[in-house]
């Protein structure tokens, strides 16, 4: 059990832009920490630097007080679950799980007990003598987890461990992993591109893009108060609408969007776009589920403050709800408001009287859930 501290870690391959650029963060003892981002964002490289498979170009990595920056992987005492599981195909389940103990020179008898315990923890008691190719994907995944945990590593590293499972098994396994981790209290770093997974499991999330840390915070905070337009788009289903600040009144600001509508939104001094002044060009992040469908739009001239007019372009029925895609209109309600960022997506409970595609409707984003981000 230990904390992990990355300070000013940079990894550059050749002349290309850095894969990881000046990354500094601290993972607390016992925390379940997630590195989240699209593929190529540097999250896996970061994890591999923590594991010791990749040497940072500059910066330091510490486990607690110990500087491990140049320690080889086999002297770092981390436990890693690989995306491909990386089980040893020539060993049976028990030999796989016991491998780390063998390397640590644990006596045979104790090794056997601990392997059995670890297998029991992941729900595979009695599977010790199975061959790896006799296991299903989910079982292999749990063997990999048991193998990483049985050595009681100071840090548990998980590299997209669920990406090879089907959707249903994925949900089950993720709560299992979290439960096992909570019991063991092992500091864990989890890498994923799946934001739902990240939110469901993590104590804290670091959102990365292009090798840069965009936001670090608890799942709720990241979801509600995205730091950048990228985070707003990447997490949840968010509409990012560009606009200009027209007025400031205490804690709120009036923002004119490019389609001419005027929205009022709280100003957060310590997050998102920060404090703003009249004339600032910013963007508003509007969650798809935080938009109310008011019905047929009145004439353009009668557009109410706080509402947006848009033409319904498509409807997707998803079971519990409906997702609507609408195209923003300009001030006269008849032309598109510019090609970029024209489409807005909203999620509403399923009803029988949906407007038809082509109808122009009025929408009202919930002012409390609008969030200002830098463009």
């Amino acid at each position, binding site marked *: 059990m230990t904390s992990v501290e990355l*300070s*000013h870690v*940079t990894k550059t391959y050749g002349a290309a832009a850095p894969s990881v650029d*000046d990354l500094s963060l601290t993972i607390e003892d016992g925390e379940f920490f997630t590195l989240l981002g699209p593929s190529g964002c540097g999250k896996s490289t970061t994890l591999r630097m923590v*594991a*010791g*498979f*990749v*040497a*940072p*170009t*500059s*910066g*330091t990595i510490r486990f607690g007080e110990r500087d491990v*920056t*140049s320690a*080889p*992987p*086999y*002297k*770092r*005492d*981390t*436990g*890693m679950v*690989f*995306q*491909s599981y*990386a*089980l*040893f*195909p*020539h060993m049976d389940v028990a030999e796989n799980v016991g*491998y*780390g103990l063998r*390397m*640590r020179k644990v006596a045979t008898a104790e090794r056997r007990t601990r392997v059995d315990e670890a297998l029991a923890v992941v729900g595979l008691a009695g599977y010790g003598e199975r*061959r*790896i*190719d006799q296991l299903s994907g989910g079982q292999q995944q749990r063997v990999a987890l048991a*193998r*990483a945990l049985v*050595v009681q590593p100071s840090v548990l*590293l998980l590299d997209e461990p669920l990406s090879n499972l089907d959707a249903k098994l994925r949900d089950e396994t993720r709560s299992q992993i979290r439960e096992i981790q909570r019991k063991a209290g092992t500091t864990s770093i989890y890498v994923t591109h799946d934001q739902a997974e990240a939110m469901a499991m993590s104590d804290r999330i670091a959102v990365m893009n292009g090798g840069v840390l965009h936001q670090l915070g608890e799942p709720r905070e990241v979801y509600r108060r995205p730091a950048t337009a990228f985070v707003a788009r990447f997490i949840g289903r968010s509409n990012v609408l560009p606009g200009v600040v027209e007025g400031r009144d205490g804690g709120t600001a009036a923002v004119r969007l490019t389609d001419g509508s005027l929205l009022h939104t709280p100003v957060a001094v310590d997050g998102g776009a920060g404090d703003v002044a009249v004339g600032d060009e910013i963007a508003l992040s509007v969650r798809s589920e935080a938009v109310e469908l008011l019905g047929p739009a009145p004439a353009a001239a009668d557009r109410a403050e706080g509402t947006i007019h848009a033409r319904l372009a498509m409807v997707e029925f998803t079971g519990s709800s409906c997702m609507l895609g609408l195209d923003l209109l300009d001030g006269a309600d008849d032309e598109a408001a510019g090609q970029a960022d024209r489409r807005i997506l909203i999620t509403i409970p399923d009803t029988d009287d949906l407007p038809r595609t082509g109808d122009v409707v009025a929408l009202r984003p919930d002012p409390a859930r609008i969030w200002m981000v830098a463009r």
Partner: protein
Amino acid sequence: MTALPSRLRRRSGLTAADRFVYVLALPLVGILLVYIVFPMIATFVTSTGDDGAAYADFTSGSSGRALVLSVGISVASVLTAGLVGGALAVLLTRFEFPGRAALRVFALLPMALPPLIGAMTFYYLYGASGIVPRLVQETLGIAAGSVAADGVWGVLLVHTMTMYPYFYLSVSAGLAGSDASLEEAAMNLGASRATMWRTVLLPMLTPALVSGALLTFMVSMASFTAPQFYNVNTLTMRIVASKTSGSYELAAAQSTVLSLVSILFLLLMRWYQNRRSTRSASKGTPQALKVVHGALPRTLAAVGSALLVVVLVAPVATILLLSFTVDGTWTVQILPPEYTLENFTTIFTDPRSLRPLLVSSQMSGLAMLASIVVGVLTAWVVARWKGRGAGVLDVMIMLPWALPGTVVGINIVTAFAAPTPFNLGQVFIGSLWILPLAYFIRFVPLVFRNAAASLAQIDPSVEEAAQNLGAGPWRTLRTVTLPLMTRGVLAGALMAFVQGFGEYVASVVVYPARFAPLSVEIYNRQYANELGSAFAYGSLQMLAILVVLIISELLENPRWRRRRSSASPPAVTAVPTQPVTV
């Protein structure tokens, strides 16, 4: 150190794993330099001695003619082997007819023919005093000499019958890889069957045909045994003649020219294989076989298949038959008149007759052990080395694969004749060590390639997992990587052993007088008209090859490997397991 801000501390970017690769690479590079690269350079330097007089000799003398002849025979071999191998592949992968199953089994039989005895058996089957021409003369009254395959025609016959598998294998693989939906798509879009072949299948088969052609060309250029039997003056023959007559400079010049041609073709092949991209991207709809209908076509197919099977089996059957012949009794008869088991019993009871067998198996065994160590470690280093050195090492170890055995022999003789700093003061001429060295150089590429192929099937994160669990680099190699490579390496090593066991082309150049290896003994016995004894050795050799082929097949398809068989193909030079030995 403490005062320095950590941001400014630049590191080499090397992990422990990278350093381990370099540590391992160093001795390997040394070994390959001394035993593979330096001998080539030694030959080249020798060839340029005396102001290049040898090259003047080369261009004015018979060498130039020999080179033209070699190239001509090689081009012809490519055409004939391509025709036979390609036709057989199309027939067997696309059509269902009586006899297909039998034909499929026997189509690969030529690969079990030992190099020397293989060429001999064609001589005794189709040569002027061979079984078939004599039979024709007896039954049809046509002079045996006019139907016999002799001289250049004999060489061409041996080449065709032993090299068509290169085409057969690559074209079969190509046809099996193109799935039915591609052809169906073409015909669905309005292509007739002929147009479909021209516009879809042939372009897709081009890589297979080109690889087969380059390989056949290289092997033909290197061919020595067949030209020796039919007394055709190819470049390889000239090299041995020059060496025997003591003109070392000329032999070196001839070897250099032949090396350059061979290396050129190796590079051409690598370039082509790296460039090609025509691999089927679709999921693969099973190929439906076209069934041959009708009584007459089916009968014809059956008779044709039977005839082909007879032709394919004939060489093997001849080896077996001749191995029971009483020495010196077969003169002008169609078939040998007297048979005995004594040829075999003598081999195992007479110490003098057993000796070549022991020499060859010991020398080849030594070479195999060295090949395993060097081949496996080099494969690992090439796979894990991230820098450009990997490519250099790959080329260095694959070089001997391109070199004709004759040239390998000349290189060794030139490089290890007198102590120099480059050969670390080692002199091997007349020493027993020269044979294992020759076999090692010739067959280490085979072990290397097999090792590299098994390595390519291992998920690299398996090694990382071991390190993550606390195993150091050596430990990881020993407990995870090597065990996973064992089967593939063993298959390659056994193949290398059996090739070394029957090696003739380089042996004949380098062998010390007191230790004649098996193949040289076979040649000597045949020369002394002790046919039965020669072929008895030959059939033992064939038996060894068959056993190794079967073991390899079992080794390379174990249960847990099968699941991964769809993994990406090995990145290293893809070459067939059959090395250049004709």
